[in-house]
C-alpha cells in the first residue's frame, strides 16, 4: 500500500528567546509582552528554505550514498531563494539524487508543504518506479516588532513516500480550494499583509477545515473518534481544538503544535509536526494531518508495525534538544535583513557567480562530490584529471566520490575577526575526512571556544554568499561541530 516510508526533520540550532524580542519592542507595542513566553527556532544567517529542506531530507534518507530509489522530489515552501530557477533542483543537487529525478516546486500557499506530500503520494500511486520525496523548509520573514516575528519559527521536514515497507499507510485524503485571503504576500514583497485574526478563525478555520477532515475520514473509512493524532498548524490559540471538536475528533488527539519551543514554520509546519508525531507513534494508530491556506487539505494515515522500529537520523526531537538560546535581538535583526548595518568596505567584494563555472562543477559545489582514484584508492576534493597522490599521479582514473555524509574532523582552524562575516568571528579551517580527503572550508553554527584541532564535524549545505546586486544566492557546504560525535567521544573518555 502507498504510504510513508521514511521521515525526517530539521530545526536550526539558534532559539530566539521571545522574552528578549518582546522586551526590545514592548515600547512600540506593549501587547507583544503577551507573546513573550518560550522560544522560536531561528535560522542561522546562512540557512534558508532550501538548506533546511536539504537537512531534513538527509535526516530522512540517512547517510547512505545510494539514493537512486528516489525518483521524484516535491519541494514545498513559500520562502524559496528563487522565483525563476527550480529550487527543487538545488535540493536535488545537494542530495545528489539522480538527474532522472522529477523535481517540482510546490508553492504559493501556506499549505504548500502538505501539498508537496500530496503530490508525492499521487506520484507513487500513479506508478512511479521508486520512492517520492516531499521536502519542505521555511524561513519565516516578518517585520520587526510584529506578532508574526514571535509566532513564527524556521524549520524543515521531509517525508519519503513509497509503495512497500511503509511506516504509515495512506488511507484517505480530501481537499478544498477556497480563495479565502487571511493574508497575502504580493510578488516581490518581503512581508505578509495580515487580516483580522477573529475573522480568520471564525470564517476560515471553523468553516473551511472541518468538512475536509470529515471527507478525508470518510474516504479512509475511519470514525472520527478513532483518530489518535490530529495535526493542524495554526498560531491561533484553541483553533485546532475547536476544529477537532467540530469534526468529531477526541480532544486528546490534537497534537501540540510546538509553539513553545519552535514556533510556526509556515508551509513547512504540517510536515514538521507529522514528522515529529511519527517519532513516537505506535503501530495501528490513525494520524490525520491537515494544513490551511486558500482552502484546506487533509490526509489520513494508519501506522504499521514498522513505525516503531524505523527512526530518522536525528528527527525533529533530536534537533529540538540541540538548541542554543539566543537573547541578542540585534543578531536576529541582522540575520533576517531587518536592519541596515555597517558591513564595512570588505563586504563590497563582487560575488558575481560565473554560471558556466557553477554548471561545470555542479556536483562538486552543490553535492560536495570529489574523486577517488580507481588505481590507488586516493580520495580527494576536488576531482581532477591528475591524481594528487604524491606517489602515483595517475591520469583520468577518478570516479565521483561523495563527501557530504562522511565524518570529518578539524585539522587546523582560526576564528577571523578581520574578514567580512555575517556572524563574526568567521570560523574556517582544514577538514580531514575519515576515509581520506580534506577540504578547506567555512565552519558554521559555532561560537568562539567551541572548536579546536581534532573536533569532529559534519557537513551541512548552506548559503555561501549572496550576490545582492544580482539577486543570486550561492550555496556550498560547511563544517558544523558534530555534537553527537563530540558527546560520544566525551563519554568514551569518561
Amino acid at each position, binding site marked *: 500500500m502507498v504510504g510513508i516510508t521514511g521521515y525526517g526533520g530539521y530545526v536550526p540550532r539558534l532559539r530566539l528567546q521571545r522574552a528578549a524580542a518582546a522586551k526590545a519592542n514592548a515600547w512600540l507595542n506593549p501587547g507583544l509582552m503577551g507573546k513573550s513566553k518560550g522560544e522560536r527556532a531561528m535560522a542561522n544567517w546562512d540557512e534558508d528554505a532550501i538548506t533546511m529542506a536539504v537537512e531534513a531530507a538527509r535526516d530522512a534518507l540517512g547517510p547512505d550514498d545510494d539514493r537512486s530509489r528516489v525518483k521524484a522530489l516535491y519541494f514545498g515552501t513559500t520562502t524559496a531563494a528563487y522565483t525563476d530557477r527550480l529550487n527543487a533542483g538545488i535540493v536535488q543537487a545537494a542530495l545528489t539524487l539522480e538527474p532522472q529525478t522529477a523535481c517540482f516546486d510546490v508553492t504559493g500557499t501556506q499549505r504548500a508543504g502538505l501539498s508537496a506530500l500530496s503530490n508525492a503520494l499521487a506520484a507513487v500511486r500513479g506508478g512511479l518506479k521508486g520512492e517520492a520525496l516531499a521536502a519542505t523548509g521555511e524561513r519565516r520573514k516578518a517585520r520587526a516588532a510584529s506578532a508574526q516575528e514571535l509566532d513564527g519559527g524556521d524549520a524543515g521536514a521531509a517525508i519519503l513516500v513509497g509503495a512497500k515497507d511503509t511506516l504509515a499507510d495512506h488511507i484517505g485524503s480530501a481537499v478544498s480550494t477556497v480563495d479565502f485571503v487571511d493574508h497575502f504576500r504580493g510578488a516581490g514583497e518581503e512581508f505578509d499583509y495580515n487580516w483580522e485574526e477573529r475573522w480568520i478563525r471564525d470564517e476560515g478555520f471553523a468553516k473551511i477545515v472541518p468538512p475536509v477532515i470529515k471527507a478525508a475520514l470518510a474516504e479512509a473509512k475511519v470514525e472520527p473518534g478513532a483518530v489518535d493524532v490530529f495535526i493542524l498548524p495554526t498560531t491561533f490559540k484553541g483553533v485546532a481544538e475547536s476544529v477537532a471538536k467540530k469534526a468529531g475528533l477526541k480532544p486528546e488527539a490534537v497534537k501540540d503544535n510546538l509553539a513553545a519551543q519552535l514556533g510556526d514554520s509556515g508551509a513547512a509546519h504540517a510536515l514538521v509536526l507529522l514528522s515529529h508525531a511519527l517519532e513516537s507513534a505506535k503501530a495501528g494508530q490513525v494520524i490525520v494531518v491537515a494544513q490551511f491556506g486558500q482552502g484546506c487539505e487533509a490526509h489520513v494515515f494508519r501506522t504499521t508495525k514498522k513505525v516503531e522500529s524505523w527512526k530518522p537520523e536525528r528527527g525533529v526531537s533530536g534537533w529540538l534538544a540541540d538548541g542554543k538560546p539566543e537573547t541578542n535581538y540585534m543578531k536576529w535583526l541582522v540575520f533576517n535583513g531587518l536592519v541596515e548595518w555597517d558591513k564595512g568596505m570588505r563586504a563590497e567584494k563582487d560575488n558575481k557567480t*560565473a554560471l558556466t563555472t*557553477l554548471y561545470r562543477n555542479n556536483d562538486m559545489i552543490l553535492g560536495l562530490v570529489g574523486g577517488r582514484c580507481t588505481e590507488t584508492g586516493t580520495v580527494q576534493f576536488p576531482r581532477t584529471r591528475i591524481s594528487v597522490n604524491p606517489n602515483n599521479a595517475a591520469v583520468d582514473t577518478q570516479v565521483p566520490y561523495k563527501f557530504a555524509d562522511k565524518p570529518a574532523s578539524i585539522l587546523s582552524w582560526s576564528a*577571523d*575577526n578581520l574578514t567580512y562575516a555575517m556572524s563574526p*568571528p568567521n570560523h*574556517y579551517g582544514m577538514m580531514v575526512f575519515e576515509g581520506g580527503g580534506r577540504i*578547506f572550508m*567555512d565552519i558554521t553554527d559555532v561560537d568562539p571556544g567551541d572548536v579546536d*584541532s581534532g573536533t569532529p564535524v559534519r557537513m551541512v549545505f548552506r548559503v*555561501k554568499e549572496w550576490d545582492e546586486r544580482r539577486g543570486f544566492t550561492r550555496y556550498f557546504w560547511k563544517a558544523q561541530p558534530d555534537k553527537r560525535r563530540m558527546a560520544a567521544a566525551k563519554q568514551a573518555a569518561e
Partner: protein
Amino acid sequence: MAAGIRDKVAIIGMGCSKFGERWDAGPDDLMVEAYLEAMGDAGIEPSQLDAAWFSTHIDEIGTGKGGTPLSLALRLPNIAVTRVENFCASGSEAFRGAVYAVAAGAADIALAVGVEKLKDTGYGGLPVGNMGTLIPQTSPNGSAPGNFAQLASAYRTKHGVTKEDLKRAIAHVSVKSHANGSKNPKAHLRNVVTEEQVIGAPMIAEPLGLFDCCGVSDGAAAAIVTTPEIAASLGHKGLVTVKALQLSVSNGLESQHNSWDGSYFHTARIAAKKAYKEAGVEKPREQISMIEVHDCFSVTELVTMEDLFISEEGKGWRDVLDGFYDADGKVPCQIDGGLKCFGHPIGASGLRMLYEMYLQLKGRAGDRQLANPKLGLTHNLGGSPSTNVCSVAIIGQQGA
C-alpha cells in the same frame, strides 16, 4: 641537479624606498625612489641596462598590468620589461628573472624592481579580491591572518605546545622585530613594544592579535645585477654574489592530500634543501649569518625557523623564546624589522629582504649592522599555508 647559480651573478646596486603609509607617493614615485638609489649605488647610466623585471601583485588597485608602469615611471630606454607576479613572493621572482638573464648571457646588466601601492583602498589590511571563478564558490570567506593562523592550531596539536606558550613565543617574534625596526629609518613601524602589549592586543584571527600581523605598506625596492667580471670592470669591490635561488610551488598536496599535517610549509622545506645544496651550505644553523624571512604573521616566522632547518622540528618556539633569532642571537632574523615592521608592500618585499642582506654584507646597515656576516638568506612566501609559492635565496660575500 643543475649546476646552479652560485657566484655566477653579482649585485652591484640596490635601493629601497621608505616603506609605510605613503600618502604622498604613487607607485611611480615609489619605483623612482628605489631605482635612483640602486642606480647611484651601481654607478651606471640607464643606457647600460639591458632588460628589466618588474614585480607587483595587486595590479587592480596598484600599478596596473604589464611592463609599462615600470618603463613609464623610470623612462627606461625602451628595453625589455617583464612583469612578474607570484603572490607575496613576486619580488623574489623579479630578482630571479634578472639574475637568470645575466647568468644566461642574455643581458649584461639587468634591473629588478618591485612595488606595491596598498594604501589606496580606503581600509586597513590587504585588499579583498577574487581568485578566478571557481575558488570563490567553495573557499572560506577568510583573510590572510585567518589563513596563516591555521598554522597555530596545527602546530600546537602536533607538538603538544600549550596555547599560552605558543602565544608567548609568537609575541616574542613581534617584540624582537619591533626592536629591530626601531633602528631602521626606512621602516614603516619604528615603535618598540612589550610582550604584554603584544599578548593583550585586539584579536584579529585567533590566535593572532594586532601585533602578530605585519604592516600593510606602500613601497618599492630595486636590484641591479651583472656578472662578477663586469662588476669588477665597473670598479666594484667586495662583491656580493648570488649563492642560491630556489622556488617551490604547491601542487595541491597540502590542500588535498592527508599526508600534510598543517603545521609547516611543505614548499619551504623543499626550497630550503635545494638552496642549501646550491649554495654549498651543509650546516645552516652554523653557516648562515642572518636571515630575512616572510614574517607576514608571527606564527609564520616561528614555523619557518624549522622549515629552514635552523631550529629542530617542534623546538623552534623554544629557540625563539631563548633569543636565538634576536639581534644579538646566533642567527639574527629580521634585523631590519622584517615584514612586521619594515613593512610589506607585496611586490617589493622579496627585493627588500635582499636589500637588507646586501647592506649587511656590504657593512652599510648603520645602527643595526651585524659583525662580519658572510651569508644571508631570504625566505619569501606567497599564498597561504595550504597553497603557496616559496622562494629561498642565499647571497653572500664572493667566495664565501
